[in-house]
C-alpha cells in the first residue's frame, strides 16, 4: 500500500499552517542547496534534525526513507571522487580519488539529507490532499495543483490494479524466475496494468463528473494562519538568514 506514514501523527508541527510550512521548506531548500561551507551545512543538518524532533516523527520510518535516498547518493561516491580533478588522496590501480572529489561528495550528501529531512518534517506530515488545497490557496496555478492531486490519486489506482494482477498470477502458481515464461508474464502484467488502470481511471473520473466535479478540487480543510504560525515562520526566517550569514563569513 502506498501510505502517508508521517501524516497520522499529532504534533506541534502538524498544527501549523501547511502553507507556511511549504513556503519555508522551499526557501530552506534553496538556501541549503546553495551553501558551500561545511559549517553552514552541518548547522543545516542540525536544524533539519530539530525539525524532525519538532514533528515527533518515528525515527525508524524516517531512517528508512533516508536509506533509499542515500542508496542513490552512494553512486555519486563511486564516481565523483575518482573523476574530480585535484590532489590525490588514495589511488587504486589507475584510479585516484581526490581530496576535492571527496569534499564535493560529502557536501552533496549533507545537502541532500538536510533538505530531505526538512521536507519530511515540514511537508510530509500533511496529506497530499491538504497540501494540494494549500497550494491552490497560495495562487499556484490550478492546473498544476490538479496534476499533483490526480497523479497521486491514480498512483493508488495503479497500485490496486497491480496487486490484483500479481495476486491472480500468484494463486495460479506463478513464481518469478529467469525464464522466457517469467519475462512474458511480467510483460503481460505490465501491459494489462496500464490498460486496466486507464479504464479504471476513466470510471473514477466519470463518477467524479456525476458528483458535480469540473476540474476544481475543493477541500474540507480550512486554513488559518495564526499567531503561532507567524512566530514560527519568523523564527525559521531568522534561522535561514543565520545560515546565510555563516555561509557568507566562511
Amino acid at each position, binding site marked *: 500500500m502506498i501510505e502517508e506514514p508521517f501524516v497520522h501523527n499529532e504534533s506541534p508541527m502538524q498544527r501549523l499552517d501547511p502553507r507556511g510550512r511549504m513556503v519555508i521548506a522551499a526557501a530552506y531548500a534553496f538556501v541549503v542547496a546553495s551553501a558551500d561551507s561545511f559549517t553552514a551545512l552541518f548547522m543545516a543538518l542540525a536544524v533539519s534534525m530539530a525539525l524532525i524532533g519538532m514533528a515527533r516523527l518515528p525515527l525508524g520510518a524516517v531512517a528508512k526513507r533516508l536509506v533509499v535516498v542515500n542508496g542513490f547518493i552512494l553512486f555519486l561516491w563511486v564516481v565523483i571522487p575518482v573523476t574530480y580533478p585535484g590532489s590525490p588522496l588514495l589511488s587504486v590501480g589507475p584510479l585516484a580519488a581526490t581530496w576535492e572529489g571527496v569534499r564535493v561528495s560529502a557536501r552533496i550528501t549533507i545537502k541532500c539529507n538536510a533538505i530531505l529531512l526538512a521536507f519530511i518534517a515540514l511537508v510530509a506530515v500533511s496529506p497530499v*490532499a491538504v497540501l494540494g488545497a494549500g497550494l491552490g490557496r497560495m495562487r499556484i496555478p490550478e492546473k498544476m495543483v490538479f496534476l499533483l492531486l490526480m497523479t497521486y490519486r491514480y498512483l493508488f489506482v495503479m497500485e490496486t490494479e497491480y496487486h490484483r494482477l500479481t495476486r491472480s498470477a500468484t494463486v495460479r502458481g506463478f513464481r518469478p524466475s529467469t525464464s522466457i515464461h517469467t519475462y512474458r508474464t511480467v510483460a503481460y502484467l505490465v501491459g494489462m496494468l496500464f490498460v486496466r488502470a486507464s479504464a479504471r481511471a476513466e*470510471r473514477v473520473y*466519470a463518477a467524479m*463528473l*456525476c458528483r458535480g466535479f469540473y476540474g476544481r478540487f475543493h477541500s*474540507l480543510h*480550512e486554513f488559518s494562519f495564526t499567531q503561532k504560525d507567524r512566530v514560527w515562520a519568523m523564527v525559521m526566517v531568522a534561522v535561514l538568514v543565520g545560515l546565510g550569514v555563516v555561509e557568507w563569513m566562511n
Partner: protein
Amino acid sequence: MDELSAIIDLKNIHFGYEPEKPVLTNLMFSLAQGEKVGVIGYNGSGKTTLLHIIMGLVTPASGTIRVMGKPVDSRKDFLDVRRIIGLVFQNADDQLFSPTVLEDVAFGPLNLGKSPKEARIMAMETLERLNLNGLENRITHKLSGGEKKLVSLATVLVMQPKALLLDEPTTGLDEEARARITALLNDLDISMVIVSHEYDFLAGTVQHIYSMKDGRIQFDGAAGILHAHLHRHPAVQHPNGQKGEHGEFYSA
C-alpha cells in the same frame, strides 16, 4: 405521460461504442416524478449505457434527452443534470476516491459550491440518516463491501438529487447488506431507476419493471405481478392465498 412532466425522458436514442454494433436502437424511456422503475436485462444489453447516457457520460448518436422537461445536449446542460440526478456506480471502488469517508461524502456538496463547514454538516447528516455514523474518519478503501456500497450511496444522496440511478446496487452483497439497501431505497421519496439482475430485489423496491433486449427497452409490468410470475419458489415461501412479503397475492 407527457414528456414535460417527466423527470427523465429519452426519445429515439441510438448509441453504439462501435458503429457496426449498436447497443441502443431507437430507445424510448420515461421516468415520472416519484416513480421507481427497475430495469432488467442480460449482460451487455445496454443497461449501464442507458444510465451513462442519462448522465451525459456518453453521447448518443441521435435522439433527444429531456430532464425535468428541458432538453439537454451540451456539456453545460449536463452539469445541471448532475445536480438533479445522482448515479451510484456498480463498483463502489470507482465512486470512492477520497482518503476518508467524510471527505468523500463532502466532495459533492463542495462541488455544488457549499462552504467547507456546510459541506461537513451535510455529510455528517447524510451519514447519520443512513446509520453510518462512526464511519466518517475511516479510510475508504479499507471498508467492507457492504459499507462501501452504503457510503457510495451516501456520497450521492448528500447532493439531494431529485432522481437516483443505481447500477446493480446489490451485486456482491450479503443478505444483511442487501436488506439494508432495500429498506433504505424504500424509505427514499425520490424517483429511481434501478438496474439489476435480481427480480426479487427489484420486486421489493420498484413499482414497474422494464426489460432491455436488442437495444430497446420494454415495459414488462407492475413489479408485484411480475414477482408472482417469476418468483422461483412462491408456493414454498408464500402458500396459496397468503399475502406475500410485498403486499401482493401470489397465484402460484
